[in-house]
């Protein structure tokens, strides 16, 4: 122990190994990140896209991913280089250099411009995502509860019936419809959520108990269900098939199992499903 803890001065001349190892590790971080990303793209990547706005979301995601990857490689590359070049190898003193207004302004202004560009493009997309739903949109209410999802369609009158929590009954009235409201008489409820391909859908999201989040990875949709508030959002599914809703907001012990089924089908199939009796 004692020989290892020698004076500072002696220690300073033993750093070649550490410099090489650290520069190598930092280079490995760059190479590892690139290789891992290339491998991940083939099997651990975003699920195939199935919505209209998702195309723009993915584009923004990957543009940003490209920008930050460049910055990641730049910073780690420079760091590795400096660690190796400027290690203490018994040279004369370090340079007494600690101010350069032009350099500092450069790396203030360049990131500021990049951030401004991202802000504008993201703000535009965000406002498109949250624009008013098209009038042709299918309207479905989705109600989250511990630990499942339930859809409701307004029926022929196009009106949802009122909800009255006092009339809740697990078997007879799981959605707590107000039986006195005539608008609710033709409401159709279902454990499955059915949507029409290429037709915009407006989802009115509610919660029966605690916070949940409606997450369908393929649609690039995620929206919290907030008790006491009905949150509306819309999107357009673009591929028929069966999808899964996952709950993305911690909601209790069954959170991990709070799955729902979403079926995207043609208008004819949808109409037939809506007319059939369901659970």
């Amino acid at each position, binding site marked *: 122990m004692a020989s290892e*803890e020698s004076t*500072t001065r002696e*220690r*300073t001349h033993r*750093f070649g190994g*550490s*410099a090489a*190892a650290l520069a190598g*590790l930092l280079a490995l971080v760059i190479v590892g990140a690139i290789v891992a*990303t290339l491998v*991940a793209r083939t099997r*651990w*990547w*975003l*699920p195939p896209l199935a919505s209209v706005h998702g195309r723009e979301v993915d584009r*923004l*995601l990957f543009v*940003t991913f490209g920008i930050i990857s460049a910055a*990641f490689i730049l*910073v780690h590359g420079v*760091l590795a280089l*400096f660690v190796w070049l*400027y*290690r203490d190898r018994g040279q004369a*003193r370090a340079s*007494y*250099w*600690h101010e*350069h207004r032009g350099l*500092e302004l450069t*790396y*203030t202004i360049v*990131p*500021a411009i990049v*951030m401004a560009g*991202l*802000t504008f493009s993201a*703000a535009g997309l965000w*406002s498109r995502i949250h624009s008013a739903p098209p009038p042709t949109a299918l309207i479905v209410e989705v109600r989250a509860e*511990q630990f499942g999802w339930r859809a409701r369609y307004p029926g022929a009158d196009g009106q949802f019936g009122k909800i009255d*929590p006092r009339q809740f009954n*697990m078997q007879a009235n799981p959605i707590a419809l107000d039986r006195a409201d005539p608008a609710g008489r033709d409401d159709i409820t279902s454990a499955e959520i059915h949507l029409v391909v290429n037709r915009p859908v407006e989802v009115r999201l509610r919660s029966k*108990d605690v916070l949940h*989040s409606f997450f369908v*990875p393929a649609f690039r949709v995620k*929206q*919290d269900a*907030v*008790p*006491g*508030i009905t*949150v509306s959002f819309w999107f357009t599914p673009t591929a028929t098939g069966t999808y899964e809703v*996952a709950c*993305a907001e*911690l909601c*209790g*012990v069954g*959170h*991990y*199992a709070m799955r729902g089924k979403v079926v995207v089908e043609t208008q004819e199939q949808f109409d037939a499903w809506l007319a059939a009796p369901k659970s």
Partner: protein
Amino acid sequence: MDAATAHAEAHTGHELSFWRKYIFSTDHKIIGLQYAFTSMFMAVLGGLLAMFVRLQLAWPGRAWPILGSLLPGGMPGGEMTPAFYLASVTMHGTIMIFFVLTTLLTGGFGNFLIPLQIGARDMAFPFLNAISYWLYPPAVIVLLASFFVAGGAAGGGWTAYPPLSALPQAAPGSGMGQTLWLISLAILIVAFLLGSLNYITTVLQLRARGMSMLRLPLTIWGLFVTAVLSLLAFPVLLAAAIMLLFDRMGGTSFFVPAGLIVGTVPVDHAGGNPLLWQHLFWFLGHPEVYVLILPPMGMVSDILANNARKPIFGYRFMVASIVAIAFLSFLVWGHHMYTSGMHPLLGTAFMTTTLIIAVPSAIKTFNWLATLWRAKIRFTSAMLFTLGFLSLFVTGGLTGIMLGQPPVDIYLQDTFFVVAHFHFVMGLAAIFAAFAGTYFWFPKMFGRMMSERLGKWHFWLSFPAAYLTFFPMHYAGMMGMMRRIYSPALYAHLQGLQPINIVVSIGAFILFAAQFIFLVNFFRSAFRGPKAETNPWGATTLEWQAPSPPPHGNWGAHLPTVHRWAYEYSPPGAAEDFIPQSHPAGVPVPAGDGQGPAPGGDGVQGDEHARGGRG
């Protein structure tokens, strides 16, 4: 005899009993170490909880009979219950954020370093300081007690979103465990507030003669601005915690709306709004992540300059960016709520402020890199962890640019991408800086050197393990793996994910195990390490002019006087490659000055440290 001398004698004039000296001490150094030791104990616990989380996520549903016999409640038959899993996740986050990083960085390093680096004898309010520490163990006891109550510890996440956290019937962890969680946090917040008040007053009032604000080391800037942040942000969480306690126990409805039904039973609340909690929580919660990263930014700046033997590059920009980050941190809380259901226009506003924060962060990063240009780098353990901090902070900070954009965040929010992001930028970066700070200031804390060999082993294992653990989480997030799920096995879109989770868990086990190298090094060096010189690193700041360790009162008879900034490394023409802050202006520096006694000296040579006072 002037007032300062009298004060000094009052501090050093008589022997204190063991209890007054080490337990109920008002000495900022002892209080700092008390904070550090308690934080280290909590860190082991918080790390252990993470190991449970990783065990479950890598091998969901598998039984571990040995663990089952140790934890019959949480792992009956060796198989983890979802409630125990969620309690582990929740308590890991709570402990690491509030009971480890906040307490260690501001309570530990803040207490130890502020008076020493500004040339004061102690904090402005030493007794208040002792009270601040002594609120911490009760908070720990209340928190740990929650593991043993009915329903177990809180399981609603470290963010404790109501109504889940407000309604005891909503989950096992929402019972007594959640109440104790809130009480514990409220106690700890009071401790933080007393500490912050003290730090702000101390930095503003007790700086040594000549120590202008723009001569302060960046460590002090980081800690000072952090104290301001804490003082402004923590009261909001304290109020929110009390409101939530009222909702739980007093029949109020701040956060619970009308008409809820849990299971089949209607809830007797009306008029509240769950989003109110999120706004209040994140109004603290976002400044809190800067409470965790500003002190590290300051500390690594000083350690970097010292080991690069170069002045920190762009000192004024560094100070300005700390202040800018702190100011902006109050305007970005809504970026945690893009998908919460708040109005989309707010999302646009919060995105703007969030992406602006990238600018001062970039300035700091490039200034650190510029500091290394044409440096003469010494790869001490402290420096390795500092350079590790740079890498981890950049990796974590950059993904924040993705998450900061609401349309991208729609997809990534509440996935493992977010988990990877914040573990890099505030978990790993902050803890690496804390390690750097420990290796660097240990000689001053205990008067002994840590083993550099063990320190390097600690780094060479921890740094790759950190990447192995947290980098693959990005891909799990890209695939859409949600946070806080007990098992990903049920989901169609997560099939094929398990290799990632297994790699992450193996990385986590290595990372956790590597920390025991540090613990062995720490405790062995504290008792048996070689004696430290006064200034073993050839550093400029004032604490390195005090003996190692400094006595009660720090400075002997005369307070130091400051003649220059904190970064006079390798100035042309000087005899040594650094000039201490307390060295009189215009006086040539004799060779060997400030180096402390020769090797083999015992490092307690009182005279030398009063040198500033003679100037």
